[in-house]
């Protein structure tokens, strides 16, 4: 019995690529994907009457709307945005040239890569109290936290991308007696750009998460602080509104970088 079942199942799947959904119309997959957030919203709506701890989606969205109309959200939003922006730019500006250097030299890779890879599992947030001790609570400490978090993925992906530039392209450049800066601008960076963007995207999401953790721990302003403050006074619609905004902001940032990555890949 079991053997027949397996045989039938195997006969059914074996000749095809198992990844191909079988006999579906082209619109079915996008429709199913679209249904997921709608079902999540429905589930949220259904949980609301069951417990006092979850406000209805409509109340949450109304509260978020009021945040923009009455303006209570701007201060926090501005603080988080500037910390993430400053730190992310800072991390990228430092990580990119270092990654480029590391990727173009086998010796530098051999020296530094094990060090960088070895610290991969260290939760970056444990460094936040050190930054607080150095800078005090405020924008500087949070930006530094964001910069450190973004630094490592961008460094690693830049190094890997530069290392993977096709050697024949580099040979071509040299045979055309291009100067190092020309080789960098015309050959290495265009070729490595899509892979570097992957690192920048990952760096952004890690940096954003680090900023929120930092704000939940100690901050003067920010969305994370708004969450913990509204939780402390049990203003649940406001708390959910900020949580929703944080998720939407992370999603939008990722979508934007992912779109940039795809454009670079096509070009």
């Amino acid at each position, binding site marked *: 019995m*079991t053997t027949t079942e397996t045989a039938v199942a195997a006969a059914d799947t074996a000749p095809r690529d*198992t990844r191909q959904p079988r006999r579906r119309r082209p619109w079915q997959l996008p429709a199913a994907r679209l249904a997921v957030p709608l079902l999540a919203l429905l589930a949220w709506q259904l949980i609301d009457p069951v417990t006092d*701890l979850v406000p209805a989606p409509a109340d949450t969205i109304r509260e978020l709307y009021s945040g923009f109309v009455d303006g209570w959200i701007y201060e926090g939003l501005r603080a988080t945005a500037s910390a993430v922006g400053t730190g992310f730019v800072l991390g990228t500006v430092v990580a990119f040239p270092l990654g480029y250097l590391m990727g173009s030299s086998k010796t530098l890779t051999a020296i530094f890569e094990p060090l960088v890879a070895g610290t991969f599992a260290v939760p970056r947030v*444990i460094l936040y*109290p050190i930054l607080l001790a150095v800078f005090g609570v405020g924008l500087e400490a949070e930006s530094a936290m964001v910069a450190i978090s973004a630094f490592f993925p961008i460094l690693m992906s830049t190094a890997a991308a530069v290392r993977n530039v096709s050697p024949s392209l580099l040979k071509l450049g040299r045979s055309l007696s291009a100067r190092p800066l020309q080789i960098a601008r015309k050959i290495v960076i265009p070729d490595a750009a899509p892979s570097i963007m992957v690192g920048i995207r990952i760096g952004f999401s890690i940096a954003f998460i680090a900023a929120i953790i930092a704000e939940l721990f100690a901050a003067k302003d920010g969305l994370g602080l708004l969450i913990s403050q509204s939780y402390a006074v049990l203003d649940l619609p406001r708390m959910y509104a900020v*949580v929703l905004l944080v998720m939407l902001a992370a999603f939008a940032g*990722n979508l934007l970088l992912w779109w940039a990555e795809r454009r670079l890949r096509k070009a």
Partner: protein
Amino acid sequence: MSGSAVTATARAPSRRRPPPVATVRWGLVIGSVLLLEAAARIGMIDPLIMPPPSTMVVRLGEIVAGGGFLTDLTTTAAAVLSAFGLGAVGGLLIGILFWRLPFVGATFEPYLVSLYSMPTLVFYPILLALLGLGPAPIIVIATTMAMIPVALNTMVGLNSISPTLPKLARSLNCSRTQTYLKVLAPAATPLVVPGLVLGFIYAMIGVIAMEFILASEGLGFRIGYTYRAFEMQDMYAYIVFVFVIAVAANVALNAIERRVRRDME
């Protein structure tokens, strides 16, 4: 002939290279620690901002010898292991499900991938309200973080199995259990194991980060607590401990991963 001669001479210096490279690497590490030590000793760094590294290590020794340390360590370790265990089982099941039902897999895959990059930890007040202050909210968030790489790698690993293998299993009259355990599982292992390694690392990062903002015990909590209490030496001692443990875990897991992959090839 001349080609092999060229590669032989080209390879010779690189064969001699490993010792100097390792020396430089460790020289840099030890050098920067000594630099910090010197800077802290001569007063270039305010002891309220950072004590000398040697003081951190001595203090760590005292903390480990003292009472509460073991409680923190076991709390964190228990949370990491539970989050990893739940995440691994859940991730494997989701991965298998998404492989068996490709349409479901294709539907949920983009959401699973983007969940990676979402600050899911902002749900902590909700979990805190639902589950209370304790290990449960921490474990829930760390579990979701650990589950994603396991699920994605399992799905990709199973999808990349050559169709000839299930065919072979069928022609050998394997039972369903035999097909799963003796054919599919070993074939998917080279990709599943890296997923498990990532899952463990994410469980560790998740637990320590969550303890940092919401806990009353654990290593992550202790770092935040000693900061708020202005016990800088204790804070650095705990940071050094977590840093060393995380690096050691990473090195050990990578060694296991390499071994498994080598055995599989």
